[in-house]
């Protein structure tokens, strides 16, 4: 693994104007964070923690006020944001699919914007449908409203991968799904991440999900980065909030262990 990180935030800050007369809200406050190539990083935090803002700063859906963000070694301010977004995959909360495009149209959108020939896009769409385990013949021409939540999110992942990005950003991708689907999709994505050699940054409010999927976890609260590290490193953190976040999965694990004996039929 190279030493240079693929994505790096250095003392990044971003404020939003408050409502009428209200004080500006500091959504991201002096955050420094590096994501190495091939790494799967989860950013965990509650609502208003600034985790979504941090993610959007990376592909310039919003611009930072302070600090420096580099992607693949380039300062993002020096890059055309449109080009930047086309080479970074982005999976939106509950899919974000275009309701008037078919599954194939949704998946092929970024290649189409780049100017990839139609035959190539078509072949790529089939390849991606296989990759996210959706039957080509069955789903290719369906519209988003004809899909289940899990299928929609699979299409969302396929769309993010369509232009063969090295980086994928995911905004609470599995949050709205039922536990079984969520589990299956998480595992499937983890496998894609590995086999395609992706670098993934995923946002979640669910520490359990983060622990199960990510190599490393960053915890945010009130715009600040409280802690970062592997699960083992995190568990050694002295921060009270981090400890609180870890308590839930621990307690769940203990109770599940007690309730479901190892030798029992699960």
């Amino acid at each position: 693994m190279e030493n240079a990180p693929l994505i790096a935030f250095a003392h990044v800050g971003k404020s939003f104007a408050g409502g009428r007369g209200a004080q500006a809200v500091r959504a991201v406050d002096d955050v420094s964070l590096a994501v190495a190539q091939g790494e799967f990083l989860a950013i965990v935090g509650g609502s208003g923690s600034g985790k979504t803002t941090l993610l959007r700063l990376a592909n310039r859906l919003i611009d930072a006020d302070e600090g420096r963000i580099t992607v693949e070694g380039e300062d993002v301010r020096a890059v055309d944001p449109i080009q930047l977004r086309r080479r970074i995959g982005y999976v939106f909360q509950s899919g974000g699919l275009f309701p008037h495009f078919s599954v194939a149209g949704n998946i092929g959108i970024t290649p189409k914007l780049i100017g990839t020939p139609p035959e190539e896009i078509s072949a790529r769409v089939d390849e991606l449908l296989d990759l996210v385990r959706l039957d080509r013949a069955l789903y290719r021409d369906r519209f988003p409203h004809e899909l289940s939540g899990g299928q929609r999110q699979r299409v969302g992942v396929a769309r993010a991968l369509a232009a063969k990005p090295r980086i994928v950003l995911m905004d609470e991708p599995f949050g709205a799904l039922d536990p079984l689907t969520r589990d299956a999709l998480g595992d499937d994505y983890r496998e894609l991440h590995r086999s395609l050699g992706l670098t993934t940054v995923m946002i979640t409010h669910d520490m359990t999900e983060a622990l199960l999927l990510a190599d490393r976890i960053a915890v945010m609260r009130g715009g600040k980065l409280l802690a970062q590290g592997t699960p083992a490193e995190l568990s050694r953190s002295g921060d009270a909030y981090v400890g609180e976040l870890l308590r839930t999965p621990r307690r769940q694990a203990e109770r599940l262990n007690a309730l479901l004996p190892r030798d029992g039929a699960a």
Partner: protein
Amino acid sequence: MSFFSDPRWGEAFAHLPDYLGNHVRVSVTALALGLLISLPLALAARNRRAMRGALLGLASIVQTVPGLALLALFYPLLLALAALSLSWIGVGFSAFGFLPAVLALALYSMLPVLRNTITGLGGVDAAILEAAQGVGMTPRQSLFQVELPLALPVMMAGIRTAAVWVIGTATLSTPIGQTSLGNYIFAGLQTQNWVFVLFGCVAAAVLALAVDQLLALIEAGIRHRSRLRAIAGGVGIAALVAATLVPQAARSPSSYIVGAKTFAEQYVLSALIAQRLRAAGFSASSREGLGSNVIFEALSAGDIDVYVDYSGTLWANQFHRTDIKPRGELLTELKTTLARQNITLLGELGFENAYALVMPRKRAEALAIRSIADLAAHARDMSMTADYEFFSRPEWAGLQKAYGLQFRTQRQMQPDFMYAAAASGEVDVIAGYTSDGLIAKYDLVVLDDVRHAIPPYDAIVLLAPKRAMDEALRAALAPLLGRIDIATMREANLRAAGGDGAASPDAVARWLWEKVGK
């Protein structure tokens, strides 16, 4: 005679290619212009709150102006612009008919298009917009590939509303000189030809529905990405426009255009003049249902060649004179005044169509009312009804001043219904027209204007400036001058109000010529 074997259906159908063609042309042009203006404005305003408010406010204000008034306002506006353009760049244009109608209707179409486009674009889910940005779309790609397609159903609903409004309102462009399906309605109302009124309304409704459905087809085509349906709808509209151009191209332009105001007598007289011109070997057509302020300007500008007006009307309305002169003197002075504008007063037809106070004969006799002076004593207990313009005309002010008239109530009514209302006792006194045949029909009596408060209203033939030296035209119309007396005109008007096949202006004009031509 059964309803459908009425010969007026045939007559109505004969006008259809002309009226429908003009109606489609003016509506489609107005709608296209309206879209051309509204859509870019809506796009520019969608992210600018202040501009959005101003635009929608302005469009709403336009919408509150009644269609007829909006159309009428564009006429003087364009007239002034045409005069400016002629004096500055030497190029004039006709402020009559097509142009003011298209501009007013286009303005009228803007509100639903603006509002629905802005609402439709504003209603696109923010998450979808972010996704469009996230997958790497430029703002322009996002607009055309995501926002507009998603806003399309709402936008098309606005466009369809606009189309239906424009087609309906276009019937009101008749008085500013644009031939439309409104010609049936205006002519029908004036000559009590209910077949025409019905025909005009149904034709406009069918046209509106047809265009609405074609637009719906285009919308469905775009929405379901069925090129076939979108093309079918587009072809349908193109075919509609093309079909209306065929009769236009096939017909040779008339050399003379005869104007007519919006009442039965005018329809009959313009038909008579057109018949005389054709008899003299010219081609002639009528431009009917023109507003009384529009028709004089149209003659000055040469948009029509000849029409019949009334001396008192020009005196009071066109030249704003409040003094009243004896008949002959007034005519002489009017002739000189008109000549200054290069308009030829060819001569009088022989009858007067003056405003007169009219009431049922029996009631008048019972109250011993013979003149307006007698009426003044009873007026406080009586109701008075007149057409839409009478109470704002100088004649009414003159009457009030001369006789101290004060009625209990005053109201306005479509002239055709006034006489029947007086005969039934629903109103006590009406401001009728002396040449109206209904006076005799309903046994009404004209009260004497003993103090000469109402100016004389001789029917006079006026020629456009460009026809001043047209000897052939003068010769063709000469046999009409001084030949139509009040009794004959009243009978002609009564026939025109007859409500059957013999009542068409053409038929009555032929009868009139039989009477006076020999």
